[in-house]
């Protein structure tokens, strides 16, 4: 249980930081696509006896490579490219999984994670990933902020928009890949969006939004595990459910003062 909590907190920190950029830059769709795009990779790796995380990495690379190939070679929007690959990869994952009968349990594990059965090595990987994310975001703080503000502005200011966009995507992929063992590919997306979304409602600065998101995520993990333990519910799904509830709680508590706050006393 201690390992589960630790892993959950690490996921919350990673998802809080990366989720903040996903929310601020409107990358939700690509985050979602990545979260599902890794499925065939994981399924194939498990089928062939490789570690799932390796398969997830390959899946994420194929996904990002495919999206950039389609958007560069055609005039289709990235939405179309993402949607297409998203559905294709998900279908491929299910097809691979359906090849083996003994796999249905594995599928549930991949989709919803197995936070209660987290291994020390998975915990180590999660720690490393969270550390990499924190360090990279500190190093790239200024270009990332400018990207959120305006990619063109970042480019003109001498921070290559495509370079830092790709670094950001790589961090999203890293978060998704490492978090799938804990909350699962289906639910990692909830952990990316719900806490950061709640943070966006109350934060006045990007840094505080990340901190709020990490705190909301950690609370979700704690109470999610508590609820799942006492009522014998699926742990990963309980965590994301609590995260979503927290979002709506913040939303309703916040919506009242916002209506007076937002009035044009400054405008």
């Amino acid at each position, binding site marked *: 249980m201690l390992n589960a909590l630790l892993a959950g907190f690490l996921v919350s920190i990673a998802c809080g930081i990366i989720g903040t950029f996903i929310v*601020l*830059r*409107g990358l939700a769709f690509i985050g979602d696509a990545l979260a599902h795009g890794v499925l065939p990779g994981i399924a194939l790796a498990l089928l062939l006896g490789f570690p799932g995380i390796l398969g997830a990495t390959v899946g994420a690379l194929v996904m990002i490579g495919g999206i950039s190939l389609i958007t560069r070679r055609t005039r289709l929007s990235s939405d179309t490219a993402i949607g297409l690959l998203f559905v294709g990869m998900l279908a491929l994952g299910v097809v691979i999984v359906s090849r083996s009968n003994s796999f249905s349990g594995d599928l549930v594990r991949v989709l919803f994670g197995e936070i209660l059965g987290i291994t020390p090595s998975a915990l180590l990987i999660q720690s490393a990933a969270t550390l990499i994310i924190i360090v990279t975001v500190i*190093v*790239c*703080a*200024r*270009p990332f*902020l*400018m990207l*959120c*503000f*305006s990619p*063109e*502005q970042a*480019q*003109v*200011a*001498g*921070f290559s928009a495509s370079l830092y966009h790709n670094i950001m995507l790589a961090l999203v992929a890293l978060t998704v890949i490492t978090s799938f063992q804990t909350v699962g590919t289906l639910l990692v997306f909830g952990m990316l969006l719900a806490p950061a979304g709640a943070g*966006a409602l109350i*934060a*006045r*600065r*990007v840094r*505080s*939004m990340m901190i709020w998101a990490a705190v909301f995520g950690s609370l979700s993990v704690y109470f999610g595990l508590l609820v799942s333990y006492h009522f014998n519910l699926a742990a990963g799904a309980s965590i994301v459910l609590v995260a979503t509830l927290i979002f709506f709680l913040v939303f309703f508590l916040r919506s009242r003062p916002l209506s007076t*706050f*937002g009035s*044009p006393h*400054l*405008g």
Partner: protein
Amino acid sequence: MRPESPLPDNNSSKCVIAHNLDIGYQGEIIVPQVNFGLTCGESLALVGINGSGKTTMLKTIVGLLPPIKGEITVLGNPPGKNPHQLAYLSQFHDSGFILPLRVKDVVQMGRFTEKGLFGRMTQIDEEIITTSMHRMGIEDLRDAPLRMLSGGQQQRVYMAQVLARQADLIVLDEPTSSLDASGRELFSHIMDEERQRGAMIVIATHDIQLAAECNQAMLLAREVVAVGPGEEILTPEALLKTFGIVLLYQGEDKGVGIVEREHGHN
């Protein structure tokens, strides 16, 4: 059609020169054969309706769009090679409403190019940031969240960020679109100050009055209708070709009047 002032020396690192320049997107020419020269302390206004090529021109100057043909030299280099000397304000800030930023955070971004990834903000940077906010009249809003400001106030914040860059070349896309009368007046005053310290300014605008305040104007309608000193080229004929209606510039005190409407132009 040529600017009255002699064309700046091609080697000068303090000028913008375009020679037989074709600009556009993805190989498609939007404005062919652009020629102009701009040197220290000069301003150029790009005037035209939406889709006339103003923004394309600005994006080519700052290096966001590659030129299709011809030559353009910006501050002694091809476009985009001098981020430290350049300030650019684009037309849209779609994320401005959701980004959790205070006014000061936005203005501070104007120092990022100078500071790079790790450079610490010094006392001097703080002073530049404060002075920039003061000049745009927003120092009282220093800690206010960006998303609670009016459109005009946000535009002043973005302008303060531009000033904080202390750039040699300032490129602005419709910088006065949300400003009220006092904001508009302040803007003219600030542009004068920037020119006096030697900065070059390029502005895309619908505002003929603003164009007349610049040293040079370029009328665009998917072609260069005219380029040169405002009082010479802001003629009814040229404006008819640019806008499809006749506007008459009646001198600084009388402003601009719409004299006659014509049916569209080709």
